[in-house]
């Protein structure tokens, strides 16, 4: 039977199942395949809240959402078009997010009494009419998989484990994607387990054929390649991109990379990722606690490494005193805070942007630092690189803010050419002539003299230093001078960062000022609102301290300034304070990113009164 192919612009698919169902793997295989086809994409996993939740339970549901498109996209999609539900719990947890009329591919084989009970279903939703508003495609994935593998000698358990690849095969057929990327992956992954490789390959192909031959599926879809800027791309998650950015900065600066870190959700992947790169001279010191993580990094910076520490909110709190020490000793370190829901242990696996003020002010004394915030998973690469560059060239601690949403989300990174990356200039002093530890250049930067250099033996530490000479000093005027110096050094960084660009008109009714990971949702929302003929401009901040020099001027040209944030108004507070401007806050703290539609509605609401719409 010839089935028609319908070309669509974009689609959002969510794979959901039990933690043991291999949903992350299924999702990442689909991702690699659409990436290889040249689509733009954005993904977001949703891990179960409990690591040891019982199989089949609501708490044990694991999900992976993928948005891919023939045009440029910024978010993993508000609501999936397609939900693949491997069991009743997965259906229960994810149904509310599905688009009205969306497609549900459901594994009927798992809808037995026990699983229905675990998912708190009193009746089988496949048998009542509760799903009548959706396009439900029931497939007994379990049985079909077992039948496909009948003649293999694997155990039943091993066979059943392949069922996610049956679902993947169906999806590849539905979206007209080739199987070869996944086939190749299976070949290398299971090179030493040929039977498992064979089983998965067979099941994948069987799923594909199933779509092709059965009557259930009538339409296939095609999403054409996106027109992305030229270049070589790879898919990266935010945490992975942070790691790559630092190694790149290490290669560019010629300094070894030192990471002092203590495992913490959702930042541990950076430690894990970096620990794989020892042949790049990367040292990952898994410290005894958060404080040792940063203290060791400060020691490594003193000794001349590119030193970093990675953590999340609770860890940043523990590191604050040490950040003050890095401010005082004027050593270059980068502190990465992958923000999560707080306070206290809060929502470890959920995202939030509520550490901005902690990064800005969370120290005793006047202790300014530079703060950057990444806007997307791929931007994490550039931010880690830039944070390293600023730290090394300005002898200053830099805090890089990402968050749980960026950490685990993924998108294509246009891999920069090494030569096109900005230079990172590091000048270790070697000449004892006229050397003073706290002399400064025109940018208030002190010289970096590292142990091992003859004739430059000197002592630094947390006590106030005599200007220029660096000996301990309690003189009143000197303290004032040094406090000013440390502030001026941070402010001076503004000369080295780009001005903000306005997306849209440079004056008008409304500008949306966003920062960090809300970039994608805000950008898509603005695009949608403009399609309705409305005028709204967008300014996105990646440099949180100091702000880009033109920011105040830029936003002063608008009647309304809307600031959406995943906190209770932290950037709003900084903007009001610095620019004496009036801002409209739009805040959300649900542990989840903004939906495009939420921002859209808010923009419409703000414009509504003024446009008479």
């Amino acid at each position, binding site marked *: 039977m010839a089935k028609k192919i319908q070309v669509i612009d974009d689609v959002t698919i969510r794979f959901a199942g039990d933690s043991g169902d291999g949903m992350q793997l299924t999702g990442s295989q689909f991702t690699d395949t659409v990436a290889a086809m040249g689509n733009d994409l954005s993904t977001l996993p949703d891990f179960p809240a409990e690591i040891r939740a019982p199989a089949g339970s609501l708490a044990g549901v694991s999900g992976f959402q993928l948005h891919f498109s023939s045009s440029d996209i910024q978010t993993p999609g508000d609501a999936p078009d397609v939900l693949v539900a491997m069991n009743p719990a997965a259906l229960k947890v994810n149904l509310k997010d599905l688009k009205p009329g969306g497609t549900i591919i459901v594994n009927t084989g798992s809808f037995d009494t026990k699983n229905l009970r675990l998912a708190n279903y009193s009746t089988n939703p496949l048998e009542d009419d509760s799903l009548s508003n959706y396009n439900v495609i029931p497939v007994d994935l379990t049985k079909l998989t077992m039948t496909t593998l009948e003649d293999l000698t694997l155990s039943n358990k091993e066979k059943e484990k392949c069922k996610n690849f049956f679902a993947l095969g169906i999806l590849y057929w539905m979206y007209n994607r080739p199987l070869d990327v996944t086939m190749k992956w299976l070949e290398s992954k299971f090179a030493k387990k040929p039977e498992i490789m064979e089983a998965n390959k067979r099941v994948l192909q069987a799923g594909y054929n199933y779509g092709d031959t059965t009557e259930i599926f009538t339409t296939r879809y095609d999403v054409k390649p996106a027109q*992305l800027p030229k270049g*070589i791309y790879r898919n990266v998650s935010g945490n992975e991109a942070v790691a790559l950015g630092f190694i790149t900065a290490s290669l560019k600066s010629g300094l070894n990379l030192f990471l002092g870190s203590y495992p913490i959700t959702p930042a541990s992947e950076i430690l894990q990722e970096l620990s794989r790169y020892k042949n790049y001279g990367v040292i990952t010191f898994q410290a005894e606690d958060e404080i040792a993580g940063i203290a060791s990094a400060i020691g490594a910076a003193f000794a001349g490494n590119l030193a970093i520490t990675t953590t999340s909110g609770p860890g940043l709190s523990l590191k604050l005193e040490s950040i003050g020490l890095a401010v005082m000793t004027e050593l270059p370190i980068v502190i990465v805070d992958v923000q999560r829901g707080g306070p206290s242990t809060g929502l470890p696996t959920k995202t939030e942007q509520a550490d901005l003020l902690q990064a800005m002010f969370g120290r005793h004394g006047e202790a300014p630092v530079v703060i950057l915030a990444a806007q997307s998973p791929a931007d994490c690469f550039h931010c880690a690189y830039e944070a390293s560059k600023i730290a090394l060239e300005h002898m200053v601690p830099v805090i890089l803010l990402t968050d749980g949403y960026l950490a685990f989300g993924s998108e294509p990174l246009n891999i920069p050419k090494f030569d096109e990356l900005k230079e990172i200039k590091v000048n270790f002093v070697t000449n004892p002539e006229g050397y003073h530890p706290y002399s400064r250049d025109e940018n208030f930067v002190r010289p970096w003299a590292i142990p091992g250099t003859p004739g430059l033996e000197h002592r630094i530490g947390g006590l106030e230093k005599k200007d220029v000479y660096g000996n301990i000093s309690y003189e009143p005027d000197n303290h004032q001078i040094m406090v000013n110096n440390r502030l001026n050094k941070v402010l001076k960084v503004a000369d080295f960062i780009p001005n903000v660009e306005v997306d849209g008109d440079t004056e008008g009714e409304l500008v949306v000022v966003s920062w960090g990971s809300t970039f994608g949702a805000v950008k898509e929302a603005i695009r949608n609102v403009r399609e309705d003929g409305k005028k709204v401009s967008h300014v996105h901040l990646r440099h949180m301290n100091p702000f880009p020099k033109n920011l105040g001027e830029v936003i002063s040209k608008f009647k309304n300034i809307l600031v959406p944030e995943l906190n209770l108004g932290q950037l709003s507070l900084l903007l009001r304070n610095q620019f004496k401007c009036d801002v409209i806050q739009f805040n959300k703290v649900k542990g989840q990113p903004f939906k495009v539609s939420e921002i859209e509605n808010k923009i419409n609401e703000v414009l509504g009164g003024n446009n008479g719409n």
Partner: protein
Amino acid sequence: METKIDNLTTQVKYTAKDFASDVDVKWCPGCGDYSILAQVQRSSPEFGELRENIVWVSGIGCSSRFPYYMNTYGFHGIHGRAAAIATGVKLANPKLQVWVATGDGDMLSIGGNHFIHACRKNVNLKIVLFNNKIYGLTKGQYSPTSEKGKVTKSSPYGTVDWPFNPIKIAAGAGATFVARAMDRDPKHLQEMITRAAKHNGLAFVEVLQNCPIFNDGAFFHLTEKESRPDNVVYLEHGKPLVFGANQDKGIKLDGLDPVVINLNDGVHSINDVWVHDEHDSNPTREFILSRFTDVEGLPTPVGVIRQYNKPTYDGDYHHQIQDLISKKGKGTYEKLMFNANTWEVK
């Protein structure tokens, strides 16, 4: 001061003065820290290290001012974190000889975690703990080594907590060189410092230090001429544990219990006395020695309690790096970024 370098293989000829910085030393008059500083400066020429390769790291407390007075690289850290900072220095550049100057509050209270983990990992650091059994810089509160019942500014009715025994902790946590010395025995202190410098691995030296202001005389029974012989036993490798003004007392091991015997009682002889084996592969005797100070009637052992070798953390770490570089080749940007599923947009 000018230093003369003969060449890089033979040693530079330093004198103690080469290790004195130009900063005025500001401990209280009579403080035991002066002696420790002097002995370290006197020993430093013996280390066989170029001055620029020596780094002193400290935390907070009277003892932690130490790096300012040494004409080496120095880092005065924050309270408790010296071992962690020093670990970073050493890992970043394993060619450096990294020392930690710390106190009983700094290292055993707020910095306890870093201390035990540095010992556990056998990071090649030299930790000199100035134990005065009191908080000096904050003016006289009890410390984690203050004896139970001690009356201080923050314990007017006497403390009710049991003290830490620094030697026991270092030994228990896996330090590979554990020694005790006293501020008022300069020659012996110099010897312990030099031996720590030469040890490859975590060297821990507890220095019993007098704080004349807040805990004067805490160790006088050990350090003063009249009482020292009866209260201190000097440990020397291969020598029997003999002490007393007339060298007439010895320690005998009765099973696992150390007992004091009289060598002149006609019953016991030198052959009964425990012979010190610094390099004992079994830590049992190290623990027995560490307990001497907790047991009424036993002398305080000073000297090297145990020294043994095992691979160091920083050594193994850099071996692993070198190993991987020779196996995989030194990493490059091309390998880093393009050894993945990439695709090209033309």
